[in-house]
């Protein structure tokens, strides 16, 4: 804490020297002086391409699973032997995690990770495009919704709001965050700047004096965000708790979100995505721990686990939730892959989560139990999960505005 104060004070002095002390600094100094109750933070992860939930959260207690997937099922958990590394990691005697998700097992055991199974969008579409759109808009079946569920879930605020309260990592603001509340897309924390310092000063002056109120306000937000992100970067970021983020875009995204959470820049909502889940061909390698799905899950699991380690007790106010547009066919196809399906799984992790459990009613995988005789059926709506986080974690009373037309049916997975 003391390091942070000194760092903030030095930044403040430097800014006063140049005659540009932004509001956030004043807020941050107050925060350092007398910590206000910290803001709740919600982080959403989108697995684009339709992840194969049945091979991620493996229903190893369901015999039909092995019948439907003769060459690409994940083997039943084993106590101890040389094949353990290729078998599911048991969670509750019925479900198990894919072996590449071993780093998530400790989170589950410590009840910081909850799994929801047979969950997804009630809309029947099997188009990536439509299904992602519906999930991100939060309005399955309604195409004309213009904003995203996360933007609607941001509490409306007057006056001083951080320009970094809602952000995504990536070049384009995702559908989930689009809407009337300001939200920004960062290529990376280091990228949000004007490279010519002289020009930056001239611009700042021009925008602070702009006759147009919108330009003046947007200009101010922009230069505040630039200053904040510059200050955040003054010290090289070192993840705490021995956390090691995997190489690649997704690990980078989570590392930067962790950095911003810890820098107390006023973050309330963050979004990141990870693509490459559309495994129609050769989903698995020769063994369950090899091949496309295994590699991607390794990156995914390591990144989530690193984030959890890195944040440490800061996970107390953070909830991270993962989703994918739909699941994949219950049976494997002719190319050792799977095609577009229906229900899927979601992960919910964080301090306020009642973890260590698999939520959702299991619908079974016998032929007549399948959706349209081919896919895992849906027993929970993705809005049951997101809605509960909005209502109970963020404490929003406006759930009807966030998910219009949806009747709340929560699973009880997040603390009130």
């Amino acid at each position, binding site marked *: 804490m003391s390091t942070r104060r000194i760092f903030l004070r030095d930044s403040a002095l430097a800014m006063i020297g140049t005659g540009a002390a932004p*509001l956030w600094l004043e807020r941050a100094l107050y925060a350092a002086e007398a910590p206000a109750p910290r803001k709740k933070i919600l982080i959403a992860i989108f697995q684009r391409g339709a992840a194969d939930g049945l091979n991620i959260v493996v229903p190893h207690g369901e015999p039909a699973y092995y019948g439907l997937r003769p060459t690409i099922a994940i083997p039943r958990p084993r106590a101890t032997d040389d094949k353990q590394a290729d078998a599911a990691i048991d969670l509750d005697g019925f479900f198990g995690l894919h072996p590449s998700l071993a780093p998530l097992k400790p989170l589950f055991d410590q009840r910081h990770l909850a799994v929801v199974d047979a969950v997804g969008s009630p809309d029947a579409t099997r188009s990536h*495009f439509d299904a992602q759109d519906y999930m991100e808009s939060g309005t399955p079946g309604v195409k004309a919704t213009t904003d995203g569920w996360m933007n609607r879930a941001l509490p409306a605020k007057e006056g001083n709001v951080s*320009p970094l309260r809602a952000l995504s990592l990536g070049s384009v603001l995702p559908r989930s965050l689009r809407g009337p509340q*300001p939200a*920004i897309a960062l290529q990376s924390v280091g990228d949000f700047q004007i490279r010519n310092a002289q020009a930056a000063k001239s611009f700042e002056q021009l925008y602070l004096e702009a006759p147009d*109120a919108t330009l003046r306000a947007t200009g101010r937000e*922009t230069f505040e965000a630039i200053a904040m992100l510059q200050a955040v970067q003054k010290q090289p970021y070192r993840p705490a708790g021995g956390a090691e983020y995997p190489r690649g875009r997704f690990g980078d995204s989570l590392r930067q979100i962790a950095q911003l959470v810890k820098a107390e820049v006023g973050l309330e909502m963050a979004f990141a995505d990870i693509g490459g889940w559309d495994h129609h061909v050769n989903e698995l390698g020769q063994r369950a721990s090899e091949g496309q799905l295994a590699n991607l899950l390794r990156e995914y699991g390591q990144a989530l686990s690193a984030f959890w380690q890195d944040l440490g007790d800061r996970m107390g106010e953070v909830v991270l939730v993962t989703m994918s547009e739909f699941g994949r066919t219950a049976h494997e196809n002719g190319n050792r892959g799977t095609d577009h399906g229906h229900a899927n799984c979601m992960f919910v992790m964080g301090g306020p989560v009642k973890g260590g459990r698999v939520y959702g009613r299991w619908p079974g995988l016998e032929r007549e139990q399948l959706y349209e005789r081919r896919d895992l059926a849906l027993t929970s709506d993705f809005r049951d999960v997101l809605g509960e986080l909005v209502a109970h974690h963020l404490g929003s009373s406006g759930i009807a505005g966030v998910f219009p037309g949806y009747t709340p049916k929560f699973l009880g997975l997040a603390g009130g």
Partner: protein
Amino acid sequence: MRKSTIVALVLAMVVGVLPPLSARSRKKGEETSSGAFQKPLPKDQRVEQALNRLTFGARPGDEERVKSIGLNKWIDLELHPNRIRENPVLTAKLKELDSLFMSSREMVQNYPAPQMVRQMVNGGLPYPSDPDRRMMIQKLVARFERRQQKGQNGESDPELARLLTADQMRQLRAGTPEQRLAAFEAIPIDQRDEVLAELPPGVLQGLFVVAPPELRRKFELAAGPQQVVARDLGEGKLLRAIYSNRQLEEVLVDFWFNHFNVFLDKGADRYLVTAYERDVIRPRVLGKFRDLLEATAKSPAMLFYLDNWQSVGSPARAAARRGLNENYGRELLELHSLGVDGGYTQKDVTEVARCFTGWTIRQPQLGGEFFFNERTHDKGEKTVLGVRIPAGGGIEDGEKVLDIVSRRPATAHFVSNKLAQRFVADDPPPALVERMAQTFLKTGGDLRAVMKTMLDSKEFWSVGAFRSKFKSPLEMVASSVRTLSGDVEFAFALNNQVTQLGEPLYRKLEPTGYSNSSAEWMNSASLLARMNFALNLANNRVPGVKVAAAEAASQGEASMGISLGSPEFQKH
């Protein structure tokens, strides 16, 4: 110094200098009260207003040109674009983007997606007739198969190692643009195609920003044939915005494409959007609304985008296991014609969808065309907005729906309001919208007449309208190049800039299109991108674009970049 002192100091400065954030308002109510639309613009600002709104920004000399023609005559010309001779510079530049002139089917063949390439290998599809292209695709297939055999691991490529030395590879990967091109040109001519087929897409992308035009197409093809189509579209749009002599037509094509938005990256639409804009939208932007509506309704691009091609009427439903799809029916009413408050019900949506069953596409994945499938059409009786459509109808059921909605006052009003929002002000004066809607109804939806009513109005030429709108990203980028008389050799990087500013062209996912309320464009990420773009352009750091060097030097790089990135330049 004590912390509390610092806080006090900071606070004092902040309060002294800055207005409270809550002063922010999305609507500019205080600046443009209804009175400002009654207040005529001084004569000397009328030409500026015309150039601001009816073009993608004034070039040096445009004001004088309009004055010498006469403002009214100039507007009349812009309303009759075929009387304007097109800029030969533009024609020459567009010629290089050959996919813009192909049918959807030709595009599929010449710039195939990976699954099409596979079909070519299996003999299910013919290879392109152009020998260069055929060879490149065969080479890509060979590479693909080699990679498949040895698994996903493409880290070290023995083929590349055979063709290039480590040093050459380094130059191609990480050299300056000039080094990269020199390294490529040092490769013996008879080996170049081999090398191209082997280079990873990332390296190729680095090359095509520096390559001369005749090589660029080759590089693009090797990097991924399918992406050429999207690139041509985006580059074509920028070139037209910057160079076309028919500026109002370009603005209107942008407006109407956006009104009838389709999304380029949805499956088959990758090959359908080019023809959609060229053959459906462009020829009709100053024609009858009813014609435009029908052309979009029958376009493969729209049928695919809003799923109508899969919509099947009840008798055929059981067999096809699919059934009625309401997407198009809903958006037709809500977004294309009546508007969300246009007085229709869910029942109307379903009835409209029933009328359009059987409106489908022949072989959509192969660039197929519209056809009416009698067998999947619901022949039952329908009632749409209170009008009975008798049982036993065919394709005319859908056509009747188009008749009904295009005659409705709600449609006249919705379309007029949207046009006024684009051309006059974010919150257009209702009286103007009403007069435009009257013209719409009187003329049977003649869009040129509606435009004329707007352009003859006192509101268009008012203080309230003048410079009241923010430029969209496309307007910002195009007007920057125009005002500097930039020379665009290729618009690939400019197109990326428009994306950075927040308007990926042809890639608005939602059927709503982009908002016509210009305040939507202003946010931190976009503003930052605008400022950086301005500096880069003025300093000739946007690949493919050269701005007048003499002018840049005389004014100093920073000052020119700063005026393009200034609050002033974001409005028009």
